[in-house]
């Protein structure tokens, strides 16, 4: 059914999109802003991906072949910053923009102009960050974690790095405020909190995390800036400060940040698996409580990133056990996804394939996380490729696969046309095979002692590195299929309103493609309730 009512309003913009570039520059439309976020993130995904290609080319064989070590370090640093702040986070904000108003029956985000601004800060931030590649002293090369004193050796790029981070933080905070206010204030009548779809729930929790930790990151990098330029001693032992203090403040941001990148992914998967299992999500409420528990725990585990810096034994024990505790709510989630599929009438369209791979491969990343959480073992694994393998398993076949699943799942709703399923499946299989080829050998490399962030290595590590590099190249090329599927999505057969047979939720009650304005009046309670049931 269509909720697009006859236009009773006298606002000229209610008729449809504005003409020309103004539509995008001045937009207050959540769908347009969502599209801009998603396109931006795709571009950044390829920019960061190109840097990954440089890294893997250099590491394909031992010895220094293509790039200067300093530039190599810039590549690892920039790859991380771009993928985290430019790739994954904006992708999820884009999905939130597109889908949350549709899922809660709201006409738009609660604060549409601020929404526009939070997007348009990002191109500024990333122009500044990418421009550092061409500066004297090169781009930042001290790692994305920006530990002092190393990061203070950055050349002209240093203040640009700090201010780019500030801008990303401002953008994220405004986006998060918008998400919270939209969810709390704009829900359809009768949609009580526990009736909200899981994607909405996980984003609500994510938004709280963002508001709580992005300002802390801003504080940390501000201290770096003043230490560098204004003579403060925050991270200077001679002045009574401590470089390790930066790590504490940074990881107080950094660990919740990890969940900021995975909780919306949990939400996406919790939408998709029920649809293609043709069953309701198993344990909806326990999913909510699990996500909230994970979010809470994320604030008290940060020092597991820094077991080797030297901290009191009691601290190590606390952070070790608190970290391991996270496995419990995460286990609840994985169990619920599997239980949702149990005896379901399952079909395996591309979004479902990506979601299944997510459950399986994210869990591998979760388990290696548990290994790293054990402080005595971590002292061996710390700063090796095992860590690289771990976080790429949770981020690539974790977060990024969930983003791809979401794009395939909702693309027909966005464009009004079915994408090419054959190519979608090809993209899935190529991505899944190559992602494992890339990152699985890194576990072995790490356990054998290969350090991360080094452009050269001992010859004993050659075989696995070569395999990983081939996998990375294959993964990179596979993503061209993704772009092709998206670009040609407008040529497919017409999508129905419901799109997927087993789909439930308010977003499937509007036409495909979703009209420029939806839910200009609150959806009727009965409809909202039914769509949810």
């Amino acid at each position: 059914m269509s909720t697009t009512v006859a236009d009773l309003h006298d606002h000229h913009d209610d008729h449809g999109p504005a003409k020309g570039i103004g539509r995008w520059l001045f937009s207050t439309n959540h769908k347009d802003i969502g599209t801009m976020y998603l396109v931006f993130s795709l571009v950044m995904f390829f920019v960061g991906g190109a840097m990954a290609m440089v890294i893997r080319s250099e590491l394909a064989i031992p010895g220094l072949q293509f790039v200067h070590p300093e530039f190599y370090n810039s590549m690892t640093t920039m790859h991380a910053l771009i993928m985290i702040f430019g790739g994954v986070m904006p992708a999820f904000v884009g999905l939130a923009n597109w889908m949350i108003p549709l899922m809660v029956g709201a006409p738009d985000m609660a604060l549409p102009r601020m929404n526009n601004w939070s997007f348009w800060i990002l191109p500024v931030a990333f122009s500044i960050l990418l421009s550092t590649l061409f500066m004297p002293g090169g781009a930042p090369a001290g790692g994305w974690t920006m530990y002092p004193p190393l990061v203070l050796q950055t050349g002209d790029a240093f203040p640009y790095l700090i201010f780019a981070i500030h801008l990303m933080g401002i953008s994220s905070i405004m986006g998060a405020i918008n998400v919270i206010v939209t969810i709390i204030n704009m829900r359809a009548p009768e949609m009580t909190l526990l009736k909200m779809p899981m994607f909405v729930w996980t984003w609500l929790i994510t938004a709280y995390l963002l508001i709580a930790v992005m300002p802390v990151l801003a504080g940390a990098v501000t201290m770096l800036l003043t230490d560098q330029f204004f003579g403060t001693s925050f991270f200077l032992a001679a002045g009574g400060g401590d470089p390790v203090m930066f790590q504490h403040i940074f990881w107080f941001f950094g660990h919740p940040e990890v969940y900021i990148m995975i909780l919306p992914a949990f939400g996406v998967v919790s939408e998709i698996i029920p649809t293609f299992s043709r069953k309701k999500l198993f344990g909806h409420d326990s999913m909510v409580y699990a996500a909230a528990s994970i979010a809470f725990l994320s604030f008290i585990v940060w020092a597991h990133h820094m077991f080797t810096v030297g901290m009191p034994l009691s601290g190590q024990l606390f952070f070790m056990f608190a970290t391991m505790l996270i496995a419990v709510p995460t286990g609840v989630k994985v169990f619920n996804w599997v239980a949702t599929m149990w005896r379901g009438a399952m079909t395996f369209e591309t979004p479902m394939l990506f979601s299944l791979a997510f459950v399986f491969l994210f869990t591998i990343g979760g388990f290696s996380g548990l290994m790293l959480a054990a402080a005595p073992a971590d002292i061996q694994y710390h700063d090796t490729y095992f860590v690289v393998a771990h976080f790429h398993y949770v981020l690539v076949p974790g977060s990024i696969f969930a983003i791809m699943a979401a794009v395939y799942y909702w693309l027909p709703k966005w464009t009004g046309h079915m994408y090419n399923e054959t190519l979608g499946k090809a993209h899935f299989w190529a991505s899944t095979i190559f992602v494992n080829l890339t990152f699985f050998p890194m576990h072995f490399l790490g356990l054998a002692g290969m350090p991360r962030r080094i452009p050269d290595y001992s010859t004993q590590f050659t075989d696995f590195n070569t395999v990983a590099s081939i996998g990375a190249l294959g993964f990179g090329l596979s993503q061209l299929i993704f772009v092709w599927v998206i670009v040609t999505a407008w040529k497919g057969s017409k999508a129905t309103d419901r799109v997927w047979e087993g789909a439930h939720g308010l977003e499937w009650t509007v036409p495909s493609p979703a009209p420029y304005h939806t839910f200009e009046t609150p959806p009727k309670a009965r409809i909202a309730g039914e769509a949810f049931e």
Partner: protein
Amino acid sequence: MTTHTEERYYVPHGSHWPIVGSAGLLLLMVGVSSWLNGSDAGFYIMMAGVAVIIFMITGWFAAVIGESQAGLYNLQVDHSFRQGMFWFIFSEVMFFAAFFGALFYARNMSVPWLGGSSNNFFTNLLLWQGYESTWPTNGPGDIGGEYTAMPPFGLPLINTVLLLTSSITVTIAHHSLLAGKRAQLAIFLAATFLLGFTFVYMQGVEYVEAYEHMNLKLTSGIYGSTFFMLTGFHGMHVTIGAIMLTIIFFRVLKGHFTREKHFAFEAVAWYWHFVDVVWIGLYVFVYWM
């Protein structure tokens, strides 16, 4: 929490202010960065950025105030604004939390460790022999040289009284607004921002005193760093709050705000209470204890 006072939702039309703001931020960030790197042109780019941002803020607020006065905003929009402001203030709290965290970390961990506590006996013996952990400190390297710590009584105490009083006056102003006593509202609002600006002035006096007579500077080790960063960011927030209060004052004179609808007034009042609470934390942990 969901409120539906009207049949239709309100969605604002497009606006060019966000993109102007982004352009301003680009100029500001590039300008300040190149200035820090030693480029004189950077200073002018930075100031251009500041100008564009001030232009954006005034223009954007003017547009929103105009729309609000035209009665475009329903109760739901009001709720959205309120919740947005609340979470914005929460994010500010977390920003200060980072600096308070640094202060507590230094006082309870890094400084005692440098003095050899816990299992850091050799740190002290081999690296910083003779350094005894104490607070306030400019570190074992005596960074910035001899200094005098800022005493809690005197100016800081006066400032505490000023700010606490201003929190009371803004509350009286709020009650006056609810009671429809416009003259009383204007008077107490004026008292509030005057107290606020007086606070900022006194803070300036304190800084001059610290720099000229006490050799207490931003560069005075961890004590100077935490002292000036915490009080500096706080002072910046008081300045912003006082400016906002002044604007609210002029809006009151123009007859804006009713008993029922006065989001902007309340938002600024919340902000003012927030800077007040931060000050109490500052006074206790930076000046006093």
